[in-house]
């Protein structure tokens, strides 16, 4: 069974600093997708960044980037120049395509402070 593990329940970072959220996963599949979703207090799950397992290049989206280590089954999220609006729950998630279920980690609560 696929599992996703986030070992940091809570993290705090000062505005404009950089923070890294950790995620590990377990799968026997050779091709799959990894995601970081953000869930602010408004509740809606918003996609932050996506990585396809067959692509070796790490995905980047503006201030957000990932460190994808396929052999280690690690998928960390780096947020640069943190902003107050980045305060939210962050979930790491995995699937093998839109026909498969999305498996989530337990989340990391990120607080950005002044």
């Amino acid at each position: 069974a696929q599992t996703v593990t986030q070992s940091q329940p809570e993290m705090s970072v000062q505005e404009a600093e950089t923070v890294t959220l950790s995620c590990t996963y377990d799968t026997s599949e050779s091709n799959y997708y990894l995601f970081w979703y953000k869930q602010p207090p408004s509740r809606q799950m918003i996609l932050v960044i996506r990585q396809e397992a067959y692509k070796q290049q790490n995905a980047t989206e503006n201030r957000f980037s990932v460190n994808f280590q396929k052999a280690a089954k690690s998928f960390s999220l780096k947020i640069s120049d943190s902003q107050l609006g980045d305060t939210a729950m962050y979930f790491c998630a995995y699937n093998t395509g839109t026909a498969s279920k999305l498996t989530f980690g337990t989340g990391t609560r990120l607080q950005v402070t002044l």
Partner: protein
Amino acid sequence: DAGVTQSPTHLIKTRGQQVTLRCSPKSGHDTVSWYQQALGQGPQFIFQYYEEEERQRGNFPDRFSGHQFPNYSSELNVNALLLGDSALYLCASSFRGSYTGELFFGEGSRLTVL
């Protein structure tokens, strides 16, 4: 372009009652999945509907049932409500033929069982 819409946003029920939650997928999407998110936890997969049939199911009892209509909208029904059913219920939509694996989420329906 409307995203995923869910109704109602909040509702309160008592133990033993039945509830129906509704979801309209993002335009162009044909697959709808439902997730249960308990407070402070990551979402858990309930089931997925495609072509009006349940295609995958998570580890949820038969009290949880669903339906997909020809216009791709979906309902989640929960019978004989228990206190433990109190949660945020998230609907996610996707296009079956997508190569991105991405799911789009609604804002959720917050169910409180008293």
